[in-house]
């Protein structure tokens, strides 16, 4: 091929034409370059899309198991002697029996149940059997009994979590090799777990607690849930929507319809486009300095979070809203002015209703990005461990400490126990589900009300 190229005389404009049907060597080279160039584009797209799919795949394969939990289901005899020594069924007296009392009762019952069902406990001490039960489980039983003292003395079927290690074993995260290195679990315990599974005593069940429980401490990954985080995020989204929509719409109307063209409005415009690009963590610093240190709002509260997120999303919402207002053709304004409406009436009676779908779509997308925002919330204390649900929105709940979904993802990811990684990924699935719903809503709105002028 190189020979042929050399033999070919250089193309001269003056020379009579060569055949079109034969590709010149140069043309072959050029076409090869063309194909290479196109191929780079395909590679680039494949790289980013495959990273996206690998990411989603790992998140889902890690996280879906968070929705299922290794759960014991066995009969428990609620010995009245042990749980209410005074025998008066008085709430106050029963409160004196701590979870430790319930732990002992549960352990004894589990060992008895194993014996009853003929499950061999060979090589496993009673203490090690007790270690099967999550520390959360006795607390739950205690709660149940105190709420309903009539259960005392009965034998009930009770469901409770197993510890994180057993849960991990059932989900394949903990293996026998790992157990050899782990002081918290032994191979004999895993064998016993297998026998329990065969018996039906222990199984993976769908875990509503993951969605409703508050966070739990490092030692009890199995009991932790997204309840507080979801309430916190919901409060914040509600407050952000309440604050950002009127502010954003007012500012956009002013800038788009009323503002004179002068230095001041220019400054505002430049400001807005720059604020949209300020790193989100800077808003966190702002929130910490202004809302917490200066205005003395409570730390970790959804109110402060919402204020920060409002300031953060405001520029993007103003940009989207202005685009929606600008899309309303001037002919409509002229028509309304022509029948004697004041400028204000034109805007509120004609322009705003026509721009509303666009504004709403922009707002939903802005809220979606606020829902996923993490960094500024870390600085205002929302990363704190919060084990209590905040109060209702009208009982000052917006001032109670809470966390948020993306923050929960981060704080679980930074804990030592690998069981929390599963929870972290599970929390992402919940977060992505909400984002998906919001985006679909925005797309539906846009499709439904899309106008062609």
């Amino acid at each position, binding site marked *: 091929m190189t020979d042929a190229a050399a033999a070919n005389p250089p193309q*001269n404009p003056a020379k009579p034409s060569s055949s079109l049907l034969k590709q010149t060597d140069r043309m072959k080279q050029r076409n090869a370059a063309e194909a290479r160039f196109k191929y780079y584009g395909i590679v680039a797209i494949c790289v980013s899309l495959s990273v996206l799919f690998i990411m989603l795949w790992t998140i889902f394969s890690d996280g879906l198991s968070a929705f299922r939990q290794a759960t014991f289901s066995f009969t428990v005899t609620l010995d009245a002697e042990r749980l209410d020594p005074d025998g008066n069924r008085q709430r106050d007296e029963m409160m004196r029996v701590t979870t430790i009392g319930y732990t002992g009762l549960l352990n004894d019952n589990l060992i008895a149940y194993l014996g009853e069902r003929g499950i061999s406990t060979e090589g496993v001490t009673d203490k090690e059997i007790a270690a099967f039960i999550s520390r959360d489980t006795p607390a739950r039983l205690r709660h149940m009994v105190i709420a309903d003292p009539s259960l005392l003395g009965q034998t009930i079927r009770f469901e409770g979590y197993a510890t994180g290690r057993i849960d991990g074993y059932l989900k394949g995260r903990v293996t026998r090799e790992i157990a050899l290195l782990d002081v918290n679990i032994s191979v004999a315990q895993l064998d016993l777990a297998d026998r329990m599974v065969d018996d039906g005593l222990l199984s993976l069940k769908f875990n509503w607690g993951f969605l409703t429980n508050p966070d739990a401490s490092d030692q009890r990954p199995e009991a932790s849930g997204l309840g507080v985080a979801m309430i916190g995020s919901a409060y914040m989204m509600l407050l952000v929507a309440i604050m950002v929509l009127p502010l954003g719409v007012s500012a956009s109307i002013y800038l788009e319809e009323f503002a004179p063209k002068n230095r001041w409005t220019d400054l505002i415009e430049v400001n807005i486009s720059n604020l949209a690009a300020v790193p989100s963590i800077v808003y966190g610093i702002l929130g910490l300095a202004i809302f917490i240190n200066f205005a003395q709002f409570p730390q970790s509260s959804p109110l402060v979070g919402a204020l920060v997120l409002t300031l953060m999303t405001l520029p993007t919402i103003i940009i989207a809203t202005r685009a929606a207002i600008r899309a309303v053709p001037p002919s409509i304004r002229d028509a309304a002015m022509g029948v004697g409406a004041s400028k204000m009436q034109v805007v509120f009676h004609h322009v705003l209703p026509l721009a509303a779908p666009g504004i709403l779509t922009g707002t939903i997308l802005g809220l979606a990005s606020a829902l996923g925002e993490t960094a500024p919330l870390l600085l205002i204390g929302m990363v704190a461990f919060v084990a209590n649900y905040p109060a209702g929105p009208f009982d000052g709940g917006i001032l109670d400490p809470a966390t948020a979904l993306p923050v929960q993802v981060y704080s679980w990811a930074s804990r030592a126990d690998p069981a929390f990684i599963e929870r972290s990924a599970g929390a992402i699935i919940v977060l992505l589900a909400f984002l998906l719903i919001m985006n679909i809503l925005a797309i539906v709105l846009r499709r439904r009300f899309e106008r062609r002028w």
Partner: protein
Amino acid sequence: MDDQLMTERLVDAQDIKITARGVQVYYGEKHALKDVDVDILTNTVTAFIGPSGCGKSTFLRCLNRMNDTVAIARVEGDIRIDGEDIYDSRVDPVQLRAKVGMVFQKPNPFPKSIYDNVAYGPKIHGLARTKADLDGIVEESLRKAALWNEVKDRLKESGTGLSGGQQQRLCIARAIATGPEVLLMDEPCSALDPIATAQVEELIDELREKFSVVIVTHSMQQAARVSQKTAFFHLGNLVEYGNTSKIFTNPDDPRTESYITGRIG
């Protein structure tokens, strides 16, 4: 119908450069060009005239397969250059366009220097082996485009800084530089003032010595001034094709006459 017309008056040479037979063009559902037969001669200026939307530009763009860049366009029929079917699957449109150059309605110099604008074609087609070769091609093309004297001292300046007429002549120089055999011009003067138009028209007449030139124009006067052959298109049909003098003085078709006398347009 054009066979007998073609023998009527002799122009410089009578070699047929392009033959088109039964050309149909569809833009999506729209049948934009219906069954067009034309022969284009070498060393001749052929003018396509007709009202807007009559298909003359569409046909022009078929001749160097520029319609390929429009996703919805579909071309049927047979177009041959020197007897070779340009829609043959073996033909690379890129190679074809080097042979059939094109100048557009609006001057569209690249945002590069004047020199780089002209050198662009020769570079991509590998026409110059050395810098000196390239300089030669650039100078020759600019001279042919009657622009050399105006720009020879500022070849490094941006092509977009020239006046409209200069820009269009730069585009012509750019097209000449690749050494085409046919030059297609899509209303090359419509964006120019009368003086620039006169310069470009003069240029077209000179270019005839080296190329066959096909020009689409709105202006009948222009067609009469520069062309030897004229084709009149109307509503996607080729109505009449023949020697320019015949078309403008004694057209066969009543529609041609109506257009020329200004009754349709």
